[in-house]
């Protein structure tokens, strides 16, 4: 187990280092997030709908799209110079590769969300200060769920035609349960309700994460084995 994690960390570190050095993907994803937020601003009538009613949806639709964009590039990187084949022949277990990609994707999406959240607060003037800690926890909980399935699927779609289109079509249905849960919990939090009101949703989010992390870890080897 220690070995698996050590290898996973080495690969994740490589991915993040590449991301950090080039920054193209990160900057595009962050700008994309900001743009989606502005699209929402102009796609509604601020005099008719109070921002607070719309805020959870705005936040989560933005995060969904940003995550999708980030996941599309997860394995794209490995296609150049057949880097994926190199990774597969190296003495690293498939589980390590999956966890490495998962970890790198979570960090990547997390950083983009880290840019998106303050912009969301700024643009829509939503008072998140008092509920910041639980809100961040919910974002993390839902993001892990998205990314667990997304990492598995992005490993498959890179070798299909129309990969950029295929990922959203396959992945969006899988984003629905965490999305519904996250929107519900965010709405309650922003309305100042206690977390004890949403334990059902929290359990659902946690169950989704556990089930799909396990399933994806089990299924990932079949998507890359030759």
């Amino acid at each position, binding site marked *: 187990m220690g070995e698996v994690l050590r290898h996973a960390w080495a690969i994740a570190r490589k991915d993040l280092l590449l991301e950090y050095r080039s920054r193209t993907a990160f900057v595009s994803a962050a700008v994309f997030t900001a743009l989606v937020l502005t699209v929402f601003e102009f796609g509604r009538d601020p005099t008719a709908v109070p921002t607070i009613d719309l805020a959870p949806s705005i936040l989560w639709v933005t995060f969904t799209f940003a995550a999708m964009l980030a996941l599309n590039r997860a394995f794209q990187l490995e296609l150049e110079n057949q880097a994926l084949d190199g990774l597969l022949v190296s003495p690293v277990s498939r589980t390590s590769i999956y966890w490495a990609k998962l970890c790198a994707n979570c960090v990547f999406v997390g950083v983009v969300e880290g840019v998106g959240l303050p912009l969301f607060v700024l643009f829509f003037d939503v008072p998140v200060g008092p509920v910041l800690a639980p809100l961040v926890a919910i974002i993390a909980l839902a993001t892990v769920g998205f990314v667990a*399935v997304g990492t*598995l*699927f992005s490993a*498959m*779609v890179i*070798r*299909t*035609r*129309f990969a950029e289109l*295929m990922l959203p*079509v*396959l992945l*969006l*249905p*899988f984003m*629905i*349960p965490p999305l*519904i*849960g996250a929107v*519900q919990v965010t709405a309650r939090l922003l309305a100042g309700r206690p977390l004890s009101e949403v334990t*059902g*949703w929290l359990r*659902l989010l946690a*169950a*989704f994460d556990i*089930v*799909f992390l396990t*399933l*994806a870890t089990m*299924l990932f080897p*079949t*998507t890359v*084995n030759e």
Partner: protein
Amino acid sequence: MTLAQRGRWVTLASLVLLAAVYVRALAFTPQELSQGLAQKIFYVHVPAAWSAMLAMGLVGLASILFLIMKDYRFDRFAAASAEVGTAFSLVMLTTGPIWAKPIWGTWWTWDARLTLTLFLFFLFVGYQLLRGAVTEQSLRARYSAVLGICGLVLLPFIHLSVYLFRTLHPMPIVLKPSAPSLPGVMLVTLLFSFGVFTLLYVGFVMQAYALANARDAAGGGGGSDA
């Protein structure tokens, strides 16, 4: 007799029986008191939904068996079942709103079971798009098996999350802990229709499976070569 021919006979027989279902439902089954004629669609809608669910269940099961045994017959069966399932979910999704408009006063509502079946349809479509986008046979089989299994695991989550969200759909009247609350005559019509739709599923799958066999025997990637 080849499999395709047998499939054609089974389909033909079930189409004749389907006509009998219509006759029995319209002429020999009493009208429901509060819903009137609109309720008759129930004898088509519910069995179609059953066949679609059966198709998804078998896609998942065949996917698991494929990954364990690496036998391409399971892959072809899953593909056939998904294709037929798409057709049945379309029947379910078109008959549902026709009933819902006079009874609920709206064509569509985001109730738990409606959402579930809509995503069942999306999963079927995504499954077939994925198959069409991968040209290599072994890759296609493994990818679609992964999606089939994930899809089967996803459906309970969608159901649960929308159920927590809101529900409006009629409560179960046949498969429930207590005895069915449907009058005997109606129950017989419904069960008859269930049988016919199952037979229809079998007939369609036999033909689709035979077609997949022929396609693989011809050596091509089949529909995915287009």
